[in-house]
C-alpha cells in the first residue's frame, strides 16, 4: 500500500516557500500571513460558499422528501427525511430498544477512541522502529505486507469468536484497521528524515533516545498526522462494522436492528449520528494538527 503524502508541503523541504525576507530584517519585515486588503473580499466569498453548501443540502433533502411524497420513490425501501427526523426524535425522547441514544453513541465512540489510540500508538511505534532499524524492516516487512493484504474487515468475525460480543472485539477490529494506515506513513516518515538533521543533533550532543524523540518523531509527524484523518474514518468504520457483526450495544446495533425491521429511516438515523461523531472527531484532529504543526509554513490559501 503506498504511503499517503503529507497534506501540506513536503516536510523535507519546509523552507522553500515564497521569497525570504532580507537579512537584518526587523520583526515586522517578516512575511505577513495575509494582506489586509483582500480580507473582506475573502470573507464575503466564504459566506457565499457556505450559503451554496446549505442550498445544496436543502435541495437534496427537499427533492428526496418531495419525491417520496409524490410516491415517485417507495418510502418502504428508501425512507424519507421526515421519517429519519421522526426516528431521531423518538430515539432522543424515549430512547432506543437498547437504552438511551447517547449511551449507544457513547459505546461506539469509546470503541472508536480506544481502538484508534491503541492503533495509532502501535502504528507509530512499529513504523518508526522499522523505519530506522533496517534489520527489523528486512525481517518483518514481508509479514506486514502479507497482513496488509488480508481483507481486514473479515477479521471482525474472527474477533467476535475470540473476544465475544462485548467491546473488546470491536476495539480489536478498530486497532487492526487503524494500525496499517498509520504504520505505513510512520515508516515512510521515519525513512525520509533529513540526514543532516540527525547528524546535526548527534554533533550537538544528542544520544539515541534524544535523536529518536526530538528529531525522528517530529520529522515523521507530518506524515503521521496526514494518516490520522483516514485512520479515524477507518476507526469509525471498524467500530460500526464490528457492532453490525454482533453486539448488544452501540450505533451499529441500532443500524442492524433497523435493517432487520425493514426500517430504512432507522438505518439513516443511525448513520447520521455516526457521521456527526466522526465529523466532531475530525475537527478535533484538525485542532491537534494545527497545534502540533505550528512550525510549518502555512499553505497559501487556495482560491
Amino acid at each position, binding site marked *: 500500500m503506498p504511503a499517503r503524502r503529507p497534506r501540506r508541503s513536503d516536510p523535507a523541504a519546509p523552507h522553500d516557500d515564497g521569497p525570504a525576507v532580507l537579512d537584518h530584517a526587523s520583526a515586522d519585515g517578516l512575511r505577513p500571513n495575509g494582506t489586509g486588503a483582500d480580507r473582506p473580499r475573502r470573507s464575503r466569498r466564504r459566506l457565499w460558499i457556505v450559503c451554496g453548501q446549505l442550498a445544496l443540502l436543502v435541495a437534496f433533502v427537499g427533492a428526496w422528501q418531495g419525491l417520496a411524497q409524490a410516491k415517485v420513490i417507495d418510502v418502504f425501501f428508501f425512507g424519507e427525511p421526515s421519517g429519519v427526523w421522526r426516528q431521531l426524535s423518538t430515539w432522543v425522547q424515549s430512547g432506543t430498544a437498547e437504552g438511551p441514544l447517547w449511551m449507544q453513541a457513547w459505546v461506539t465512540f469509546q470503541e472508536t477512541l480506544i481502538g484508534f489510540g491503541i492503533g495509532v500508538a502501535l502504528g507509530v511505534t512499529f513504523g518508526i522502529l522499522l523505519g530506522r532499524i533496517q534489520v527489523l524492516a528486512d525481517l518483518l516487512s514481508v509479514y506486514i505486507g502479507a497482513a496488509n493484504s488480508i481483507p481486514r474487515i473479515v477479521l471482525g468475525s474472527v474477533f467476535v469468536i475470540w473476544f465475544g460480543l462485548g467491546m473488546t472485539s470491536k476495539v480489536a477490529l478498530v486497532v487492526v484497521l487503524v494500525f496499517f494506515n498509520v504504520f505505513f506513513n510512520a515508516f515512510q516518515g521515519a525513512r525520509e528524515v533529513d540526514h543532516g538533521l540527525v547528524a546535526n543533533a548527534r554533533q*550537538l*550532543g544528542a544520544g539515541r533516545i534524544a535523536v529518536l524523540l526530538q528529531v525522528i518523531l517530529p520529522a515523521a509527524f507530518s506524515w503521521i498526522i496526514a494518516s490520522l484523518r483516514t485512520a479515524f474514518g477507518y476507526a469509525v468504520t471498524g467500530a460500526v462494522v464490528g457492532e453490525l457483526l454482533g453486539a448488544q450495544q452501540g450505533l451499529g446495533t441500532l443500524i442492524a436492528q433497523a435493517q432487520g425491521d425493514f426500517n430504512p429511516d432507522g438505518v439513516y438515523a443511525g448513520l447520521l449520528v455516526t457521521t456527526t461523531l466522526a465529523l466532531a472527531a475530525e475537527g478535533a484532529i484538525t485542532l491537534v494538527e494545527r497545534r502540533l504543526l505550528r512550525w*510549518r509554513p502555512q499553505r497559501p490559501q487556495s482560491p
Partner: protein
Amino acid sequence: MRRSVHCDPEGPGATAPPPSLTLRGVVKRFRGPNGRTRTVLDGLDLTVKPGEFMALIGPTGCGKSTVLSLISGAARPDGGQVLVGGEPVSGADPRTGFVFQQDAVFPWKTVLANVAAGPRFRGVDRKDAETRAHDWLHRVGLSGFEHYYPHQLSGGMRKRVALAQTLVNEPRLLLLDEPFSGLDAQTRQIMCDELLDLWEGTGASVVLVTHDLEEAIALADSVAVLTAGPTAVKKEFAVDLPRPRRVREIRFRQRFVELHEQVWSCLSDEVRIAYARTTTAAV
C-alpha cells in the same frame, strides 16, 4: 598577534585550551553504486595548530566534506589517523562543533529552542540552557526572534541560528562546511565578518571547507589546497594578513591580491582536472 581567549562565565568549556588537529596518511574509500570502491582520500596529511583557523579549498567533489565528517567522528577512516588534541577520534566529540552546509536547524523548534538544543542534549537544565541561548542569540544579532520558527526567517538569519546553535556548546574545534554557500554575496560578507568576530571571542581551532578562494584567504590563518580526487593536500599557504580583519576591506590589500594569485595558480590546475573529469564522465 594571536587573539586573546575570553573566558565565558557560563560555560566551563571556554576555559579549556583549543585542541590541535592532526590527520596522518588518512585514507577513505566509498563503495560506489556499481560495487566498485572509490578512493576519496588518499594519504591526506594535515595539521591544525591549537587556535588556528585553517581553510581547506579544492575543486568540487574532491572530498572536502569527507575530511570534516572524519574529524567530527561521523565517519571512520579506512587508513591513517585522525587525532584531535592528540587522541584518535571516536564518535561525536563534545569539544567539536559542526556547522553543516545545508540548513540543519530543526524546523519544528523555535529559534530559542534550536539554540538551546545543544546544552539540553548535554544535560543542562532548561533555564540555564535558555539563558545561554539568549546570550548567543544576542551575539549573532537575533535578539527579538526567539519565538520565530526557522521557516519565518531568511536564509542568512537561519545561518545565524545554525552558528549560535553550534557555538552555544562552546566548541574548542569548530568545523565549518561551506557554511555560507546558500547566501547571496552581500550577506556572505556580513556573515564572514560576524564569524570572525565570534571566533576571535572564543579562540577555538577552526577547519573551514569552502570553494570560495576569497573567503578562504580573508578568514583563515592558513589555506590548504586539495587535489582533485583521490584527495591529498597539494600545498599549504600561510596567510600573513594582520588581524582583526574586515573581510570587505582586506580584499583590496596588496598582500591579499598576491596570495590570491599564488593560491589560485596552485588551485586552478586541480579545478581544470576535476572539470575535465565531470565533462568526460558525462559523455
